[in-house]
């Protein structure tokens, strides 16, 4: 930190946005480019606790001793959501009545401590009818496991955090 001294007993939280958009860490930072991480096989937990700052993937889950406790779930949920959404749907810009593309503003964010893009129109269309049917069938199966508030009554098969279990057992051994 420049011109700022911080006592060791005051653990500051980092400015995540500034680090993530540092062009020295991530060239052309506002370009969404998954190949930045193509040689990074670290799990979220491995990357978040990597002592070499330049090997950290990002700082969303914090830094130091007090890290996000849910990062394993976040990582797996995002993997399933992203892989299945893209497997099923084509995601494109929406068009207005004149057929012109509606390009959302990537800098138009919600205000507050937690940020996300403000709602924007998009075109989300199944890639084919087989995939659409498969998603409908899966949803029907899952609906049977949900209560009236859409909370799990029973956890579905396959939601076993196998790797997490292994990591926890490994920690106990060490």
């Amino acid at each position, binding site marked *: *930190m*420049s*011109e*700022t001294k*911080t*006592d060791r*007993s*005051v*653990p*500051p*939280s*980092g*400015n*995540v*946005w*500034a*680090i*993530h958009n540092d062009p020295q860490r991530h060239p052309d930072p506002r*370009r*969404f*480019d*998954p*190949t*930045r*991480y*193509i040689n*990074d*096989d670290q799990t979220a937990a491995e990357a978040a606790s990597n002592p070499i700052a330049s090997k950290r*993937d*990002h700082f*969303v889950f*914090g830094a130091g001793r*007090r890290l*996000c406790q849910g990062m394993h779930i976040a*990582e797996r949920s*995002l*993997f*399933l959501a*992203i*892989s*299945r959404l*893209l*497997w*099923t749907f*084509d*995601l*494109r*810009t929406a068009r207005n009545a004149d057929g012109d593309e509606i390009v*959302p503003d*990537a800098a138009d964010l919600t205000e507050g*401590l*937690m*940020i*996300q*893009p403000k709602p924007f129109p*998009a075109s989300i269309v199944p*890639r084919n009818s087989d995939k659409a049917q*498969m998603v409908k069938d*899966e949803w029907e199966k899952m609906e049977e496991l949900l209560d009236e508030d859409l909370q799990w009554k029973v956890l579905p098969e*396959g939601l076993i955090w196998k790797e997490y279990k292994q990591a926890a057992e490994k920690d106990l051994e060490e």
Partner: protein
Amino acid sequence: MVLFPEVVKAAQEELDRVCSDRMPTLEDAPDLPYIRGCVKESLRWMPTDALGVPHAVIRDDEYLGYTIPKGAGVMCKSTHMQ
């Protein structure tokens, strides 16, 4: 994703090659490096907690003349972090 159609295309090429006509599962993660890249890149590109999460002071402290009592929540909003 709608702003970066080339990412959708590359991701779908990988998904179609690895998973074909079955839905991806967690077991596919080792074979889907581009999707794993999408996960990390999503968190970098749009970090929900852009300013980080507040931490707490473990004992009384003083900083630039301000008293920071034990237990107080602190955040770092410096834009000069190197």
